[in-house]
């Protein structure tokens, strides 16, 4: 399938859609039921996140979209964990021996789709990787419908999806909660902190002298969701916070004296 690149235009689209996302009121209970189950299993998602260097909520969202949060099946295709996958993609995981843990299987499924190669997990990139994971069929062939894999249960999706025999239906409605809706609701409930991406991040200033800023704590909590980062949440965006931003996003905070160093 043709690959879609994460251009600046697409980044803006994702940021705008996320900013204006409202959960459909009639589906609030279903969303929160899924969120409760996800949060209860957060350590399992974090364990996989350590293996593939991805935020735990991304893995949880994929798990919901691929297998309705079922931990007894391969994330690749729903085959049982008691043996390697029999169906497409077959003979996974390549390493290890059955029976597999869900964590082993999930890490293999995500690595197979190259999720472990993603380094900058900002909001736009997260939404892009979610849509890419499912495939670009909606964006390439049905531009009038925002992918239900990402936006179902929100004001950005009403109908239209691929049905069981692989054909397109303009009237079919996705019955599962979209991945962006799950992430937004996790954020609304305070389970995660997701900043608005580069647009905001690039504006957060570096501070030398222990000066607390308005979004400092939010930024540090957000950075702490990434594997290997553990910052004190004190609201002061100093050298350690700037290091973490550099590590995850490739640039220092605005005003960091190291900017421009080779």
């Amino acid at each position, binding site marked *: *399938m043709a690959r879609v690149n994460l251009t600046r235009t697409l980044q803006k689209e994702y940021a705008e859609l996320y900013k204006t996302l409202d959960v459909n009121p009639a589906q609030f209970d279903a969303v929160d039921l899924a969120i409760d189950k996800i949060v209860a299993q957060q350590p399992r998602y974090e364990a996989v996140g350590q293996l593939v260097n991805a935020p735990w909520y991304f893995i949880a969202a994929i798990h919901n979209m691929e297998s309705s949060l079922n931990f007894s099946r391969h994330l690749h295709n729903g085959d049982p964990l008691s043996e390697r996958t029999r169906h497409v993609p077959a003979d996974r995981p390549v390493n290890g021996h059955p029976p597999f843990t869900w964590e082993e299987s999930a890490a293999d499924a995500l690595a197979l789709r190259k999720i472990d190669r993603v380094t900058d997990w900002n909001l736009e990139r997260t939404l892009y990787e979610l849509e890419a994971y499912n495939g670009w069929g909606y964006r390439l062939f049905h531009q009038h419908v925002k992918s239900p894999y990402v936006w179902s249960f929100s004001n950005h999706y009403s109908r239209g999806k691929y049905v069981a025999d692989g054909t397109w239906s303009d009237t079919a409605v996705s019955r*599962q909660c979209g991945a962006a809706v799950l992430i937004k609701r996790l954020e609304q409930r305070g389970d995660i902190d997701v900043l608005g991406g580069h647009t905001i991040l690039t504006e957060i200033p570096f501070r030398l002298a222990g000066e607390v800023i308005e979004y400092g704590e939010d930024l540090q909590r957000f950075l702490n969701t990434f594997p290997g980062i553990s910052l004190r949440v004190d609201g002061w965006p100093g050298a350690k916070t700037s290091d973490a931003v550099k590590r995850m996003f490739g640039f220092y905070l605005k005003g960091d004296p190291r900017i421009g160093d080779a």
Partner: protein
Amino acid sequence: MPRLPGLLCLFLTVLCLKACAESTEPVRRIHTAFSESSGLTVVDGLGNTQQLTEGSLAAEAIVSSDGRWILVEDMQMSNLVVVRTFKLTRDGYREVSTPDLRQHWLQLAEDAGLTFEDLEHTRVGAEGFGPFDETVMLHFQADSGLVNSPVIDALVEVELSTNVE
């Protein structure tokens, strides 16, 4: 009159030879490969390559014992796998219209108390051919995408059609 049994014998001999030729037709040796850029391709013993699918996230081929049939598990979306059937013709492998997945999905959805359009995570896997390669066992899996959803997990024997599209 005396020549009639001779002609009959000749006719029967030809029929026998034809039947023997068909029954001893050499097994067609092929191999298949998948890549995201090239899709699923089949290569025969002479090195002829034919592309069977394109645009898939992944695909696996299951070839019948005589090489006449290829079933393809075609992962069109990460949560949507269909089975496609290809039959060997003089012009290479051609897709045939069966199995009719929709009819089976409709029945399975109804049995689970769901509608066809409710189904999510719909995946069909090929478990193998029947004894004469004219039927195939398909594994249907799906749910409604919601927590505590009814689950479809069924093996169905499906006849292969000779109706080339």
